[in-house]
């Protein structure tokens, strides 16, 4: 590294230089599982990346996307190790390189951006120090020069007033701004490749939009090649030229984005696409999930990993591992039957309307709810924060009320107040007309039986010490429902109802995947047979196929049990499909309510409009895919 580089971004590198910058060949990665058995997270993955290129890696949770990306920079977490293959950066093998050399590669040649902006920044270092550290590590100028450059970088990623904000600590920045700081850090070393691991998953649509714009803009202007990992097809569609689809640790399809997304060759890709909710789909349509569950990387199959869930599987699929073969138009797919297929995969079945009951009378009503969080800090005298400011809403029996809004707009707070997890600081709550704002002991019991909640974070809301059976039985015990045997049966029944095997009762939450954990949470909420179920972002942490599964499950439960649902999400598309009505929240207020289709098609509030505009559409409307 020389220290003479002074230009802001090393000139505008010409995009599209046709040299192979990063070449991954037959990369395999193993972890050691908790039981000591090897977990084959990545199997024989190959791809190439040219200068200035944009490549997306998609696939459901656990398919090995992050692992592949980490392995490329030799940054495998925990017990991870590369068991085969090579990673060539400009022809130089990083798998064989030593730590010292790798340090000169990291940051300077390969930059990385991580998923969670909240935890990826060091809480005790200022934004300026974060950037300064990176610049220092790559030998950039003296202190003053570094500071100037840091401000410049912050400006570049669109943080207003960068000079001043250099001295702020991460907690003073919003989630989106933190993600920008991370991007600025990744750019500080002027890398040739930028690997972004789900950079927007934690962000809401408007911020996501800004970040993606920033990334594409950078790629265009500086020629930095971009590897974007995501399970959001919309994000992929608008950002990357090429896409790599992973399943069970292997690449199943690979090709130009527009082709792959409009005409998927691999049934898995098709399934994934079908599961994506469309903003254009009207309220009350069913999402199409992929049936079955993802493979267990600790027990690799002999044949195609997807064969078990594949509607087109042939006998050969189960015995021999399919290899990537080039089909026409530079699309490659690891699916022998696909080569033979000529007509496009029939995508998702035509979106099915849910036959849902018409909503009945009002069960839950909130008027003018206020919630103020008391200040924290050492003095406890900080001014309170008004998280809810005069929120009113009603919920009818059998109705789904969708609530959308950006992060921090007060959605969870509202959910908690409605479920009596927190007391409100003002306003009234009525359950079937009865005032339950300050319930007595017996009233509270009634409320608990009637109103239940599914939490945002499926893991954090399950006591790690309890078995699933204990978790689900907990409300029954607390509310004194049934004797032991009855409870046992009820737990089994509930687990079955949410699509889990009753034998799951004996295991601990950590033995389950995210989607399964969310189901456990739902089973618990259903235990006292509530009439109102409040779902706080039940699907935001899940990938599209799991999301489809959960959303459909909720729909079925509503139909069967006549539940009134409050469905909170920040993805308008999902909300539109599941809700009868939508309420849009902004800064602790409801800015707009209306029927789902009405709000999405004729938004009145400017904020709703911005939200709609920012939502990425996964696929350019193409022939063959019925919308």
């Amino acid at each position: 590294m020389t220290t003479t580089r002074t230009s802001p971004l090393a000139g505008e590198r010409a995009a599209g230089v046709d040299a192979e910058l990063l070449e991954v060949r037959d990369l395999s990665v193993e972890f050691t599982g908790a039981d000591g058995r090897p977990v084959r997270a990545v199997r024989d993955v190959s791809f190439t990346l040219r200068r200035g290129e944009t490549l997306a890696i998609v696939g459901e949770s656990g398919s090995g996307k992050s692992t592949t990306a980490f392995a490329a920079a030799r940054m495998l977490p925990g017990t991870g190790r590369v068991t085969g293959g090579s990673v060539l950066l400009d022809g130089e093998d990083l798998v064989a390189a030593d730590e010292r050399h790798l340090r000169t590669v990291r940051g300077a040649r390969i930059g990385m951006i991580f998923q969670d902006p909240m935890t990826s920044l060091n809480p005790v270092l200022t934004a300026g120090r974060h950037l300064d550290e990176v610049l220092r590590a790559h030998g950039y100028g003296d202190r003053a020069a570094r500071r100037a450059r840091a401000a410049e970088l912050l400006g570049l990623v669109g943080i207003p007033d960068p000079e001043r904000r250099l001295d702020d600590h991460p907690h003073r920045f919003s989630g989106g701004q933190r993600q920008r700081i991370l991007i600025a850090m990744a750019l500080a070393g002027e890398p040739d490749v930028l690997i972004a691991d789900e950079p927007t998953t934690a962000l809401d649509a408007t911020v996501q939009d800004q970040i993606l714009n920033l990334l594409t803009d950078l790629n265009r202007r500086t020629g930095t090649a971009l590897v974007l990992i995501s399970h959001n097809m919309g994000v992929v569609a608008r950002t990357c030229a090429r896409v790599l689809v992973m399943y069970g640790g292997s690449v199943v399809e690979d090709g130009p984005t527009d082709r792959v997304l409009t005409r998927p060759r691999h049934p898995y890709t098709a399934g994934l696409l079908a599961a994506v909710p469309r903003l254009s789909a009207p309220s009350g349509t069913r999402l199409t999930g992929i049936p079955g569950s993802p493979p267990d990387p600790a027990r690799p199959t002999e044949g195609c990993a997807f064969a078990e869930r594949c509607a087109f599987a042939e006998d050969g699929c189960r015995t021999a591992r399919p290899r990537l073969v080039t089909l026409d138009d530079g699309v490659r797919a690891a699916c022998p039957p696909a080569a033979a297929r000529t007509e496009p995969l029939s995508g998702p079945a035509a979106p099915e309307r849910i036959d849902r009951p018409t909503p009945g009378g009002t069960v839950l009503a909130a008027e003018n709810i206020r919630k103020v969080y008391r200040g924290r800090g050492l003095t406890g005298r900080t001014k309170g924060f008004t998280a809810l400011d005069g929120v009113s809403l009603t919920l009818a029996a059998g109705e789904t009320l969708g609530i959308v809004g950006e992060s921090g707009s007060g959605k969870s707070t509202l959910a908690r107040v409605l479920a009596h997890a927190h007391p409100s600081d003002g306003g009234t709550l009525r359950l079937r007309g009865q005032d339950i704002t300050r319930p007595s002991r017996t009233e509270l019991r009634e409320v608990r039986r009637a109103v239940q909640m599914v939490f945002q974070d499926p893991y954090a809301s399950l006591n790690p010490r309890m078995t699933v059976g204990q978790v689900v039985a907990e409300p029954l015990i607390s509310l004194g429902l049934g004797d032991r045997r009855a409870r046992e049966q009820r737990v089994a029944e509930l687990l079955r109802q949410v699509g889990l095997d009753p034998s799951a009762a004996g295991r601990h939450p950590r033995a389950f995947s995210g989607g399964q954990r969310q189901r456990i949470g739902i089973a618990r909420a259903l235990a006292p047979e509530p009439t109102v179920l409040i779902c706080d972002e039940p699907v935001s942490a899940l990938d599209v196929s799991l999301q489809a599964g959960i959303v459909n499950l909720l729909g079925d439960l509503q139909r069967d049990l006549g539940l009134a649902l409050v469905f909170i999400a920040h993805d308008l598309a999902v909300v539109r499909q599941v809700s009868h009505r939508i309420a849009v929240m902004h800064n602790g207020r409801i800015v707009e309510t209306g029927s789902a289709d009405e709000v999405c098609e004729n938004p009145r509030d400017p904020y709703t409009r911005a939200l709609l505009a920012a939502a990425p559409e996964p696929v350019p409307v193409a022939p063959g895919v019925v919308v």
Partner: protein
Amino acid sequence: MTTTTPTAGAVPGTAPAARKAPARRHPYLAALRTPRGLTGLALVALIVLGGLFAPLLSGHDPTAQSGLGLAAPGTAGHPLGTDDLGRDLLGRVLYGIRTDLGVIALAVPLGALLGCLFALLAAAHPVADTAVQRVFDLILAFPGLILALAVTAVLGPGRLPVILVIALAEIPVFGRQLRGGILVQREREYVVAARVGGTSSSRALVRHILPNAADPLVVQLALSLTVAVFLEGAMSFLGVGVRPPEPTLGSVLNQSMPYLADAPQFAAGPLLAVTVLVLGLSLVADALNREIRR
């Protein structure tokens, strides 16, 4: 309480499904099965068993004075030799372990228990919290050994003051930790979830918060045991330890001091025992800590 039909009675406790199913091993047990945990456990067991079976392992009464005076290892059936009063050193070390264990095994849990009770009190109400915090401050503010001198002067010599002093010193250590743990766990989502599920706050405390807040306490327990051994030694040194001639590791060590240069074996026995015990405990604490952090 008059219910006769077994089906109608409210049966608290764990869901039977969990019992029948092949439940995952408790994390503490898992921690103890790691190589680190096993080594630690083995070392602790070595010392503890040495103490427990002291009467079998040493044929001598630890207070019997043979008339030999300070004797080298191997003299006349004394594998470690005898101390300056002619008492069998092996016996004194083994019985010393026994005494120490008797003291710390009572004192540390007692202190832990009291600390936890205080912490629970603190969790009950902000006013109680302030009061309890001040109590902890107060205990912490008094230098431990000064406290030892005062307590022994009031109560007279013996095990009781040693136990009390150690327990007293441990109260704020455990209390502060549990209080912090409860405050953290109370805000956790699963507790909110349990409350929404109808769990009363006392049940939430017992079933949800405490089991999760207790993790650091288990590690602390191992650490505190080592500190207690140390404190016992210091008290012996100041002459306010367990009543002589009953041996403790600290008192045997203290007696060996004049002979440190000439007869190092005198000090070596108790020193080795203490070190092995502390090493074992620290390995166990480490293993637990790792497992809990996962």
